[in-house]
């Protein structure tokens, strides 16, 4: 071999291993990459240094992006820098670097988060590991479960209105830790913490939560704090008619709201024809309202879910609250039955205007000395909860409320219409409606990662009116006895099981099943009538009960796919069985979150909802006389699809979110002109027409939840439309709750230790309006030779297209001030304020009024809320 060949071979053997075979852990590597996926970095190393990587793309996530700049660093060190923080381990096998997922030993911390003073469970508290940057939030029972690496040393637990707490974990085992947070003294400056969960950390969108402390300080109607009225001030939620506490969410109707009180549906959420909600604020712990992006665990209504949790009652000591308002008084008492184990809470509320008006009404209505007059609403709640063991707890909650009017006459008369006639009348008339809701729930912790809740519940709404009339002439033989009643009822009895499973920090799963038996009695009337001792009628009408069974299953997983990508994958499937028919629905519930630079979150959702029950109404607003009925062959279940996209971020003290949405609805119903729903007989579906609906818009919310100065600015741009074959010639028309622009500004300022000032300004474009488009003469007689009528006949108004006009825009400023004085553990709270401070006459209703002298008519606007003072006084002990 020549020298030249030997040199050549030597070079080859020296160079080749260096380039192809001879890499080792000490090989010096120079690498500069910026925000590149790991797979690209490996390709570079392979190209430059001949290092072959072997891995499974299904197991090892090579999409994670890294930034690295090294000069002549040993290969092992570079590998450590690349992979150790990504949970990837590497190993040389032959000439390959095999990448696998590092198996990190984990443990699960679980338990409940509660108020340290009362034992009240806290919903939505954040449990967070700053080091690992993973966390979770407590569910609606205050339960949390967090699975982390075993070397987790500390957790930070935070909740709005409470001092954040740092929890040190000295051992490395699974543990159940019940966390007690100390409330921040609301009379002092609230400490701002950066540990509050940011909007960008939640995949859930289209959700509204109003702090109860905010509800109690907001301006009040006639001194009554009202949680639903407060929620109206959030974007996407409208109150409908002026003064109403009803909620219309993203163009939906009131019957499309699923209102849950401790998981039990409440059919009619208002007292006094919609002026006040049925929920006593003293009883409420938490309210979540979903406008879209509905979690899979909810179903049965189209437009919103309002999930209201009642307080559990103080486990450690007795407390109470008494409040006097212009319209109503409230009382609340809570305390332990067995200290630390069993607690109760009872609230009650009643209006008392009727007590003040009784004498006036007795004289005005000729009720007689023994007559009576009552007109009031009341509601009462009771809740008991008992801790059987650290793993088991039961809750029994009950709600009952009613609006009731009763008029009784017991009077002897000496004349009738100014003619002498002696007779006696006994008359009794009562009108009432109300809800009852009961729930028995059992929480059980199967394992640190699996929590369950079993619920048995019953809910009923009853509208009931009855009368009896006993007449007796005293000088001749003439007697009458009449009695009758009319009622409608809807009820449901249900059982459900919910599971909350947190296998690891990247998954939070919920699944469960529900069985509900619906019962409908839509308008039953019965009468009994006799005169002069002869039985005339004794009969009942439409005396029938309809039933339906609803079965639903759901599953959802809040899944962290990558560092910046999160999804909420869910499905809600349900079946509704009525005699002769069954309906099945599979409803996807999908949420998506992507973390953008500067901590903005891009969120998207796509959800389907199905509603199997309809509300028959031919009113301009939701009334207790409306009738609930089950879907039929002609009027099938309602379906909606909603897609939403938005950006959200929490920055220091502020939350900002902007969302756009589009919702389509099928099988929505509208009454046929001239129909009357006093009773829904077997042919009720001939009196409604079935159509479609669309709602779309954008919502902006800028909110400050912490500090002495709190509040929000909300703006809604929305459109809500309907189309029915026989309405407005089948054209698309604005729905009655359609408002184009809605601006809400809610502000509150704590002044020192005693004063809190609040203001609420709102502007909204006018609601759609239907007005006559012409008028003409009427006829009621076949000939002109009849005696003239007692009143001059009016005109016939031509009712044109529905909702083709607009009311005037509305705006209003409400203010209130709250003064709190604390003495010996007792707080004395005086709240006073004014609604509509600058006395803006906003439209409530339009109609043609008549000048009785000239008989001419004029379009007239009726306003109902001038400047209106309110005052209430509360003692808390």
């Amino acid at each position, binding site marked *: 071999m020549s020298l030249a060949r030997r040199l050549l071979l030597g070079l080859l053997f020296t160079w080749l291993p260096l380039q192809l075979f001879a890499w080792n852990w000490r090989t010096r590597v120079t690498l500069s990459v910026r925000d590149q996926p790991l797979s690209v970095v490996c390709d570079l190393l392979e190209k430059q240094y001949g290092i072959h990587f072997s891995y499974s793309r299904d197991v090892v996530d090579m999409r994670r992006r890294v930034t690295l700049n090294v000069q002549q660093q040993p290969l092992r060190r570079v590998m450590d820098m690349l992979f150790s923080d990504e949970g990837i381990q590497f190993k040389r096998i032959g000439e390959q670097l095999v990448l696998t997922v590092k198996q990190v030993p984990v443990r699960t911390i679980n338990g409940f988060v509660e108020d340290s003073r009362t034992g009240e469970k806290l919903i939505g508290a954040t449990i967070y590991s700053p080091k690992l940057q993973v966390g979770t939030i407590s569910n609606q029972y205050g339960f949390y479960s967090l699975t982390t690496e075993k070397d987790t040393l500390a957790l930070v637990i935070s909740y709005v209105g409470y001092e954040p707490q740092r929890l040190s974990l000295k051992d490395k085992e699974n543990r159940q830790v019940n966390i007690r947070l100390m409330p921040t003294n609301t009379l002092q400056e609230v400490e701002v913490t950066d540990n509050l969960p940011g909007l960008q950390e939640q995949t859930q969108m289209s959700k509204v939560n109003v702090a109860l402390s905010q509800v109690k300080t907001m301006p009040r109607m006639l001194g009554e704090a009202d949680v639903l009225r407060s929620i109206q001030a959030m974007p996407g939620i409208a109150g409908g008619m002026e003064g109403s506490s009803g909620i219309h969410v993203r163009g939906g109707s009131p019957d499309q709201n699923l209102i849950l009180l401790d998981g039990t549906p409440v059919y009619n959420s208002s007292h006094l024809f919609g002026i006040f909600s049925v929920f006593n604020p003293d009883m409420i712990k938490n309210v979540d309202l979903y406008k879209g992006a509905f979690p899979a665990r909810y179903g049965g209504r189209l437009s919103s879910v309002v999930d209201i949790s009642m307080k559990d009652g103080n486990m450690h000591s007795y407390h109470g609250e008494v409040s006097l308002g212009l319209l109503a008084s409230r009382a609340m008492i809570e305390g332990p039955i067995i200290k630390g184990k069993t607690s109760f809470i009872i609230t009650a509320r009643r209006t008392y205007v009727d007590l003040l008006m009784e004498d006036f009404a007795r004289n005005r209505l000729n009720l007689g000395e023994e007559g009576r007059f009552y007109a009031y609403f009341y509601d009462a709640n009771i809740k008991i909860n008992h801790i059987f063991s650290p793993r088991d707890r039961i809750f029994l909650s009950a709600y009952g409320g009613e609006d009731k009017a009763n008029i009784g006459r017991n009077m002897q008369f000496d004349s009738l219409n100014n003619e002498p006639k002696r007779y006696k009348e006994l008359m009794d008339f009562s009108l009432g409606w109300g809800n009852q809701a009961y729930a028995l729930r059992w929480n059980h912790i199967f394992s640190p990662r699996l929590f369950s809740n079993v619920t048995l519940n019953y809910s009923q709404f009853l509208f009931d009116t009855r009368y009896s009339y006993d007449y007796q002439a005293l000088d001749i033989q003439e007697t009458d006895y009449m009695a009758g009643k009319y009622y409608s009822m809807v009820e449901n009895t249900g059982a459900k099981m919910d599971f909350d499973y947190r296998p690891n920090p990247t998954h939070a799963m919920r699944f469960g099943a529900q069985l509900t038996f619906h019962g409908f009695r839509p308008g039953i009337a019965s009468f009994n*009538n006799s005169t002069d001792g002869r039985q*005339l009628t004794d009969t009942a009408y439409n005396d029938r009960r309809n039933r339906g069974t609803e079965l639903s299953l759901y599953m959802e997983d809040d899944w962290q796919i990558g560092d910046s990508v999160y999804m909420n994958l869910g499905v809600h499937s349900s079946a509704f069985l009525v005699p002769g028919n069954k309906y099945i629905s599979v409803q996807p519930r999908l949420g998506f979150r992507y973390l953008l630079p500067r901590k903005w979150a891009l969120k998207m959702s796509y959800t389907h909802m199905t509603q199997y029950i309809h509300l028959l109404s031919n*009113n301009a607003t939701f009334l207790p006389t409306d009738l609930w009925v089950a879907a039929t062959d002609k009027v099938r279940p309602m379906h909606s699809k909603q897609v939403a996209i938005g950006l959200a971020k929490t920055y220091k003290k502020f939350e900002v979110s902007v969302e756009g949405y589009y919702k389509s609805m099928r099988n929505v119903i509208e009454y046929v002109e001239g129909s009357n729903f006093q009773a829904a007989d077997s042919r009720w579906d001939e009196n409604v027409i079935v159509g479609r609906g669309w709602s779309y818009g954008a919502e902006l919310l800028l909110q400050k939840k912490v500090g002495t100065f709190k509040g929000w600015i909300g703006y809604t741009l929305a459109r809500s439309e309907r189309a029915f074959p026989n309405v407005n010639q089948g054209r698309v028309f604005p729905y009655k709750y359609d408002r184009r622009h809605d601006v809400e500004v809610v502000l509150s300022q704590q002044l020192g230790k005693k004063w809190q000032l609040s203001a609420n300004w709102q502007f909204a474009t006018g609601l759609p309006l239907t007005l006559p488009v012409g008028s003409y003469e009427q006829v009621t007689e*076949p000939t*002109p030779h009849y*005696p003239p009528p007692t009143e001059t006949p*009016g005109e016939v108004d031509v009712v044109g297209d529905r909702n083709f006009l607009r009311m005037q825009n509305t705006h209003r400023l409400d203010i209130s001030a709250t003064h709190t004085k604390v003495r010996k553990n007792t707080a004395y709270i005086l709240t006073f304020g004014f609604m509509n401070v600058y006395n803006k006459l906003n439209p409530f*209703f339009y109609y043609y009024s008549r000048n009785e002298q000239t008989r001419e008519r004029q*379009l007239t606007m*009726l306003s109902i809320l001038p400047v209106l003072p309110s005052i209430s006084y509360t003692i808390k002990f």
Partner: protein
Amino acid sequence: MSGRWALLICFCWMACEKAADIPVPYDGDRIVVNTLMQPDSLLYLRVTRSQPPGGSSFPEIPGAKVTLKAGSTEVPVEWQVIGGKGYFVSGVPVRYGFRYTLEVSAAGLDTVFATDTLPRAPLLSAPFAQAGGSRVRFNMRDLPGGDYYRFRLFQANRDYVPQKRALFRFDPSYNNSFTDLVSDTFLEYTLIDDGRFEGKEITVVMQTQEVNKAGGYLLLEVTGLTRAAWQYLKTLEQQVSNGGNPLVDPTAVYSNVHQGYGIMAGVNSAYLRVEIK
């Protein structure tokens, strides 16, 4: 219904009214024809113009061309002024068993058409009213099939010619209006269908607002209505009673007049003479 009014009462102390300025579109005048056809009576037809919303007086169209047919036979009509109002009056009485059709045209307005038949008359018996009392009682037999009725009561002279409309309230068993008992309301008429007594004979008691005077005479009128007459009168009643009520949508009054407004419908009244003893 009573609940809605209760709410209105609650609000009335705070309510405030003012003239509104909302431009409401009006699509021009139309011919309005109004007639309720009673068998064995002449047909009295009002022909007027519709007016913009809020109108309260309606010009007559005496020069309108009116074509009235009973079946295929044309019935002559002539313009008459009765009690200060102009009517087209048929030359012969309306006869049971015919379908009547009407065509009315006038210069500058769309020609309108309407048609209806005549219903059967109610079967009434056993009237009773006693002096010093405030009740009128009678029996009514309902025939099988859907029927619609209007009840009225008149104070009459010795020849039972109606002199004055009597106000009364009807048995709530049939019309649900038990709130009339509470509010002490008396009405001029009551409209009911036979849904609660289909094919049966019923005894009806009407409570009168005034005391029955000995030697007085009452005329009870129960009118059978065609479906068109029922829909018109019922929706008219609803529009009037709901007027000014913010809680309900305005009711559209039924019309069977094509290209125009109004009603042409058959009615058939039966009468009971009630002598107060």
